């Protein structure tokens, strides 16, 4: 009946980026954009599958925007790309084996890979300013044979996006207005899948046609 947001997980890897962008909508999300600027935002908590699905979307021909923080102007919804190296945790290594980096890009403690964006093989950033077209909440389910896409209500999407955002309270004049603007402009779906590359292909085909 009523959900309350969890404490915000703020990644230390993005603190420098975030610290200079207060007043922006800072989503804990990955993103990939078409040449015309239409952008798929992949939103979720740490470990939800953002990086893997973002990499898979890039493999379909979209440009890499970020794998961790989507920085949005709350008025225009323009996205400022944050093309940090993709952080791939051990649980995703098998699926992303094709991107395995050289040893200097593997953290000996965590085992995490740091994949340079240029190694993804996607196109350069689009000339058009990226703006959100679709929001995807990844739901990885090893038993899921097919890829399913379930619409999410605007209010639910605003809640889920906001609960994982950074410094929401700094958005003037109303953080909720910024979230409403976003979820009205970009419909949201829970995408359930076991194979991120199949999911990316379907997302691209169904939610970003004519690219």
């Amino acid at each position, binding site marked *: *009946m*009523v*959900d*309350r*947001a969890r404490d915000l997980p703020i990644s230390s890897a993005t603190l420098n980026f975030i610290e200079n962008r207060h007043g922006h909508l800072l989503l804990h999300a990955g993103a990939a954009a078409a040449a015309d600027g239409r952008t798929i935002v992949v939103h979720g908590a740490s470990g939800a599958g953002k990086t893997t699905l973002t990499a898979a979307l890039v493999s379909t021909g979209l440009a890499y925007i970020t794998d961790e923080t989507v920085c949005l102007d709350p008025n225009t919804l323009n996205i400022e790309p944050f093309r940090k190296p993709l952080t791939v945790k051990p649980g995703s290594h098998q699926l992303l084996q094709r991107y395995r980096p050289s040893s200097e890009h593997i953290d000996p403690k965590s085992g995490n890979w740091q994949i340079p964006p240029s190694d993804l093989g996607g196109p350069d950033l689009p000339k058009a300013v990226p703006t959100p077209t679709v929001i995807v909440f990844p739901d990885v389910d090893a038993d899921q044979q097919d890829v399913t896409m379930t619409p999410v*209500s*605007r*209010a*639910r999407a*605003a*809640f889920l996006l*906001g*609960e994982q955002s950074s410094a*929401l*309270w700094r958005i003037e004049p*109303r*953080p*909720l*207005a910024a*979230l*409403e603007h976003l*979820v009205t402009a970009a419909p949201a779906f829970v995408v359930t899948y076991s194979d991120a590359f199949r999911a990316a292909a379907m997302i691209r085909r169904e939610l970003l046609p004519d690219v």
Partner: protein
Amino acid sequence: MSSHRSADVDWIEMDGEVVLFDGEHLHHLDQPAAAVWMSLDGDHDDEAITADLARRFDADPSAVAVDVADLLRVLRLRGLVSG
């Protein structure tokens, strides 16, 4: 008893659901809970809200009363509602 929304909670309604922001946390209310929230104007007591909700959702008033009481208890605990 008459409950009302806390003044320092911002909220927005979208398609019959509500999102609240208390300055630190977000909260999501589904449609039945949102209907209660939007009735919390201080002019309607809890019994009137329950009766209205039971009528609108064609539900058993005694069951609705339990749900409304539970919801208001949670909202009060979180400082979103007073009274």
